[in-house]
């Protein structure tokens, strides 16, 4: 099967500054694909190149096999939901939704019908004759969605569409977007800096940093088996420790933690030497029998969870997350505790 979107060694340079360093990605048909990364990582630039708002310096962008990298935006069968919606302020809601159809030369009756259906889909039928300024942020968001979906694009691009909404609305829209994507069967490419958004909606996520794709995978993949230090640090909360790997045998690496504690963990490709080790705070338990010792600095109450801020023997900070359950014993500040690492809690990272 042909990929919906295929990027091959895409480069974007602004003068002497390189914003995108040869990105290659394949996005399957009917996939909810997210570009995730901090601001300035190049995710929006990449999206805008797919939409056609930015010229590609080098590389190919294929849409169901056709190279579209050099086409004008109006010749690409992809549509965009803009960050601040960009609803045409001088046109009514229905005219906004019908705009793309009008440009495609579809006659008035047909485009009114189609635009009406689109508004029905986003539950805004009775707002058809309003002006965009008369709608709330959430309603404008839906109009923007209906407008972009009306011409039945092959791929829908969404540029941080939820960032202007408040928390409750954002959470509701996540569910709605995911449902919409499944119902329409259209490939969604979603750009965000919000990892929770990415983790909850996406089939696959590409984590980006400094103009490069750091890792592509499902939410579970990138959270539980991060490839490198950036991904481990950016997604969720983690303890990053500098470790010395002595030897690798049978896919297991033996190493020494800061403070001298020995540890082995699975690793296919590690080589002896200094590496970063990631340990997720929720994969550690406090146990008197634990041989790894730490001193508690402070306990932070988070409601559902408790965060224990501690230090290992050499002084490197180490965070532990405990569930706030009745049976949990809360350690006191200054106490020395033993830590138990679950199998698979530690992951050795490439740099």
């Amino acid at each position: 099967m042909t990929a919906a979107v295929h990027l091959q060694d895409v480069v974007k340079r602004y003068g002497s500054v390189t914003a995108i360093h040869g990105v290659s990605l394949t996005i399957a048909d009917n996939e909810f694909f997210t570009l995730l990364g901090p601001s300035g990582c190049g995710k929006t630039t990449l999206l805008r190149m797919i939409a056609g708002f930015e010229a590609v310096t080098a590389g190919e962008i294929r849409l169901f096999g056709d190279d579209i990298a050099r086409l004008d935006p109006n010749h690409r069968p992809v549509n965009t939901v803009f960050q601040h919606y960009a609803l045409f302020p001088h046109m009514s809601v229905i005219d906004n939704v019908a705009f793309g159809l009008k440009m495609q030369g579809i006659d008035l009756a047909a485009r009114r019908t189609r635009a009406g259906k689109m508004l029905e889909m986003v539950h805004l039928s009775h707002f058809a004759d309003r002006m965009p300024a008369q709608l709330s942020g959430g309603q404008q968001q839906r109009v923007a969605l209906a407008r972009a979906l009306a011409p039945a694009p092959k791929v829908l691009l969404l540029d941080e569409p939820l960032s202007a909404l408040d928390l409750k609305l954002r959470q509701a829209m996540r569910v709605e977007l995911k449902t919409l994507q499944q119902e329409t069967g259209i490939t969604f490419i979603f750009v965000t800096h919000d990892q929770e958004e990415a983790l909850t909606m996406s089939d696959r996520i590409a984590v980006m940093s400094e103009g490069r794709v750091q890792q592509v995978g499902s939410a579970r993949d990138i959270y539980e088996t991060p490839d490198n230090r950036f991904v481990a640090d950016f997604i969720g909360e983690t303890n990053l420790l500098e470790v010395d790997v002595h030897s690798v045998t049978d896919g297991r690496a033996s190493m020494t933690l800061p403070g001298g504690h020995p540890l082995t963990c699975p690793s296919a490709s590690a080589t002896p030497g200094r590496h970063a080790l990631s340990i997720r705070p929720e994969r550690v338990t406090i146990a008197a029998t634990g041989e790894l010792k730490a001193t508690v600095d402070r306990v932070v109450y988070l409601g559902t969870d408790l965060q224990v801020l501690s230090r290992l023997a050499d002084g490197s900070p180490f965070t532990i997350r405990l569930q706030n359950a009745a049976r949990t014993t809360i350690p006191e500040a200054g106490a020395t505790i033993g830590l138990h690492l679950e199998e698979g809690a530690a992951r050795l990272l490439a740099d």
Partner: protein
Amino acid sequence: MAGGDDSWRPLARPLLIPIWVVIGVFSLLPVLLMAVYSFLTKEFRGGVEWDFTLAAYDQFFVTRGLFGDEPAQIEWTYITIFWRSIWQALICTALCLLIGFPTAWFIATRPAQSRGIWLFLITIPYWVNLLIRTVSLKFLIRDNGPLNEGLMAIGLITEPLPLVNTNLAVQLGLFYSYLPFMVLPIYAAVERYNFALSEAAADLYASRWTTLREIVLPVVKPGMIAGCILVFVPALGAFLAPDLLGGAKTFMIGSLIDEQFKGSQGNWPFGAAASMILMTLVLIVLVFYARAASREGAA
């Protein structure tokens, strides 16, 4: 996005052609030509001969007596006229600032609904023909005009105040002409002013007037400087107010230049030279302003 829009970029220069042609040919070129004229020789019927000379500038700055045979001395006549114009423009600027700042502040601190109305009231006179405004003022303050009649009727004065043809009248005319130029930029600055700064100052024991001096004035200074430029520059070259409200004693640059181009009494190279000197003065002020503005911007 920085750097504009890809689809417009190639059109930028073609779109600028009309403005380059029109302003280049009908504004820039004439000014350059005027510079050339200031070095030409005067012809008697009001015109020029194409002989290059410094005569116009010599006439402006140097005197050699009535018959031109005495040792060269500084000619004070025109320098005095320029000095008087600068002085009048400065006083006008100061007065406009004194009245304009409180007015702008007052308007900018009104509730949003009534602010528009106040601002509208201030801008209307700005849009009324300057000539008509000056004529109206002359009508109001002339010897047996409504102002003097009114003052005599309520017994404040017994004789009409001789206002027309005085420095005071010219001053009043200039002030009246350019006051809105002061109010508008200061208003814009005050509207952007963050009033939490005043509250913070008050919280830290500053009195109302200390807050004004230490916090408000420094913050809205760019608006005040812009207002001062907008008043000073046109006031310096003003023609209508001195011509209609003043007399021989209040002769200003505008009238001096105007006279050089009227009929056979005129002297075009001298008029061009006086214009060049006026433009140089304005340019100096603008350069100072640009430097002050960029310093404010950098700070």
